[in-house]
């Protein structure tokens, strides 16, 4: 299963030593009704992220867990009104699964799992501790593939968990907005910018730099239309940014 010698053990993540396409073919010709039903239940996940079936994350409580298992647990956990600690635990496990995939160079699967994790976390962000949301998102920014869709979810989580109110969360949101300034949904941008501008430490956030990035990405008219009260002071800041002065020497 994991390529280890008999009796050997490891705390490392591993990939199961079988290929999914021939394994599925084997199941298709030998399955009976109950096996078929099980395969049918998992088919959408296997089709989308085959590596979820074969990649196992480092042990939690002494047991390795496949990525598919971690994802399923996460999806099921959120509907049972678990405590914030339990919720954080399932999201952290899924986050470990995502980063383990990245370490194994399974980047497509990693991007998919990161998207699914952050997309799912949007529903719970309002009741998660801000520092835990930051921790998970920070780890994913550093170690995983964060697609534009995942980035939008991450920014939404930072805003609704109130994480973007303080310096740490706001700096993560700034990083994500700067990287995906052209694609982030306008409504999410407004939510995040409001949280950052109204936060405890607005001075620590480079709002001026962010304003310049958004202008350069062509987002100014949209934001001015959607939230004039927010956009006016924000874009006024852009004239104070050293970046803008550097790019347009004559404008000041």
């Amino acid at each position, binding site marked *: 299963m994991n390529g280890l010698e008999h009796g050997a053990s490891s705390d490392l993540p591993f990939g199961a030593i079988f290929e999914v396409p021939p*394994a599925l*073919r*084997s199941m*298709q010709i*030998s399955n009976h*009704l109950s096996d*078929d039903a099980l395969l049918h239940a998992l088919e959408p996940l296997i089709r989308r992220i085959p590596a979820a079936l074969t990649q196992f994350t480092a042990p939690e409580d002494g047991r390795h867990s496949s990525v598919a298992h971690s994802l399923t647990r996460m999806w099921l956990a959120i509907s049972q009104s678990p405590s914030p600690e339990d919720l954080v635990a399932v999201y952290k496990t899924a986050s470990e699964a995502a980063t383990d995939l990245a370490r194994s160079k399974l980047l497509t699967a990693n991007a998919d799992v990161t998207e699914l994790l952050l997309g799912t976390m949007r529903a719970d962000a309002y009741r998660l501790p801000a520092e835990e949301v930051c921790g998970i998102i920070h780890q994913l920014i550093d170690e995983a593939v964060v697609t534009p869709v995942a980035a939008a979810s991450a920014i939404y989580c930072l805003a609704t968990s109130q994480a973007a109110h303080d310096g740490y969360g706001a700096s993560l949101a700034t990083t994500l907005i700067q990287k995906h300034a052209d694609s982030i949904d306008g409504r999410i941008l407004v939510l995040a910018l409001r949280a950052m501008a109204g936060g405890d430490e607005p001075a620590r956030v480079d709002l001026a730099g962010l304003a310049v990035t958004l202008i350069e990405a062509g987002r100014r008219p949209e934001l001015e239309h959607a939230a004039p009260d927010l956009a006016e002071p924000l874009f006024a800041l852009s004239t104070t940014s050293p970046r803008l002065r550097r790019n347009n020497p004559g404008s000041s």
Partner: protein
Amino acid sequence: MPFIAGLLDDPDRTRIRSWLIGRTAQSLTRPQYAESRYRPVDKRIDHWMATYSFNLLLLTLACGAELRASDLFTRTNDPAAMLRNSALQWQAAVPSYMWMDAMEVFGSPAVGATVAVTSFSSTRANGQATCRIRWTPTG
């Protein structure tokens, strides 16, 4: 498989195939154990018989045309179930890496045979299994 398929690429292929289907069907439905001196590994008698029918199946598939469960199991109402049972016996009889290698080969267009199963939802009605398994040539 490509090597065998090349050998079978002969004007007589249709005749050879029909003979192979008959032998494969016989080895699955009325198997007889023939003592052989060639026994490179230890195996149970039933596993030798399953290995034999599996080899005949591979030879039949190497002829290139579609093979349906109903071609092999002509006297049953549910050929798919019979094929599934046989597949479990083949799986038990050969080392797992060989079985998985065979599964790779079946999917490879180079060999001209792939396994197709009709979709789940449309094939289970009133709890009755009507799913038919086909070996479908792609080449």
